[in-house]
């Protein structure tokens, strides 16, 4: 099972990831993604794997990685 890793050196709070994975990520006060699972790098459940791949491709800053 993969995990979502936010590269904070790149993230600029664009927000496609929070749109595609609302179960795992939500925008904070300033638009940056917060993990909703309590883990720093939230684990991706199998049914969301497709959306996680989409989110990784979609981030314009290339700040989201599946690890």
């Amino acid at each position, binding site marked *: 099972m993969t995990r979502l890793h936010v*590269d*904070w*050196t*790149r993230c600029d709070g664009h927000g496609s990831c929070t749109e595609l994975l609302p179960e795992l990520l939500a925008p*904070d006060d300033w*638009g*940056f993604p*917060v*993990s909703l699972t309590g883990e720093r790098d939230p684990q991706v459940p199998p049914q969301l794997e497709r959306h996680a791949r989409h989110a990784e491709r979609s981030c314009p800053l290339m700040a989201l*990685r599946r690890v």
Partner: protein
Amino acid sequence: MSLTAAPPTRRLLTVGRATTLPTPGPVELAELASLAGLTGRGGAGFPTATKLRAVVAGHAPVVVGNAMEGEPLSQKDAVLVTRAPHLVIEGLAIVGRALGARQTVLALGPRVAAGPAQAVAQDHGVEVRSLRGGFVAGQESALVSQLDGRAPVPRDPLVRVTTRGVEGRPTLVLNAETLAHLALVARFGAPWFREVGTAEEPGTSLFTLSGKVRRPGVVEAVRGSRLADVLACGTPVDPVAVLVGGYHGAWLPADALDTRLTRSDLQAHGATVGAGVLHVLGPDRCPLRVTAGIAGYLAGESAGQCGPCVNGLPRIADSLRRLADRSRDPGLPAEIDRLGRLVTGRGACAHPDGTARMVASTLRVFAGHVAAHRAGWCPTDERWTR
């Protein structure tokens, strides 16, 4: 290995230069560090053996001694590097040779004089570099970035510097004091190192005493000592609380001065030994105002890279300032708590985490003070004007 007689406690500032440098191989050196139970003295307290083994083999690594001294309340590395540079340099040389390092560097922050180290460094092929300062500049990956000629800004921790660091090479960054201890372990052995201290925390550590003490400065103490005993070296004056671990540390109130400076004992207070900073707060200063000042400083020292830190820390500092100014806003403590949890774990380095930890400790230990401020008065003022 034959051992010469070694001094029992005042180790770091009394041992002279080694006549011949020990030359353990990489496996032997890691074994030595492991047997000695040596842990990092830079703040994180990582087992040194683990770090030595983590350096990816076979790529001519870079070994860096970290004496950046980014924590304003700390002076131990500056003192060590200027008064006993040979120990740090020898430690670097021993590690460098063991790992087959292509480059060994001693990184000095602006508060550390380079002269004494430079005099010794040449004999051991160690390069001394004086770098730009800042609170975050001593962070491992920020230091690596600076050594690469870039700004002292942390990197994404997904790729560890032990895999890819300076010039893309596996890099081992060890605190200057850790290297000094390692040099002594290599010379006098692991059992010698363990002669003092506790089983879980053997050896000695340098502590920096500051704040309301008659004699501030750096003291070497046996690990596992009671906080009160270490403080006694500097003669504290009416301590109300002690900030243990520096600006990213936690407060221990006056009734907890008997606490042993060990990981397990300090955990109950949400504190760690960190880099040995012990800052005494006297009765003449409002703890909330002091913390607001520290938080403001920490917000300004953000590398300015990660959104939650850049945005969150100034908000935390601002809220603390309002609290110190006796704002009647009932939601203030909860808001500070929320912001602290919001920034924790969300950045390339632990700057927001440490800030949040220190602030949370303040609100917890000085809960009475917080309640008074919200009611419009300050116990410090009351006490002082009486």
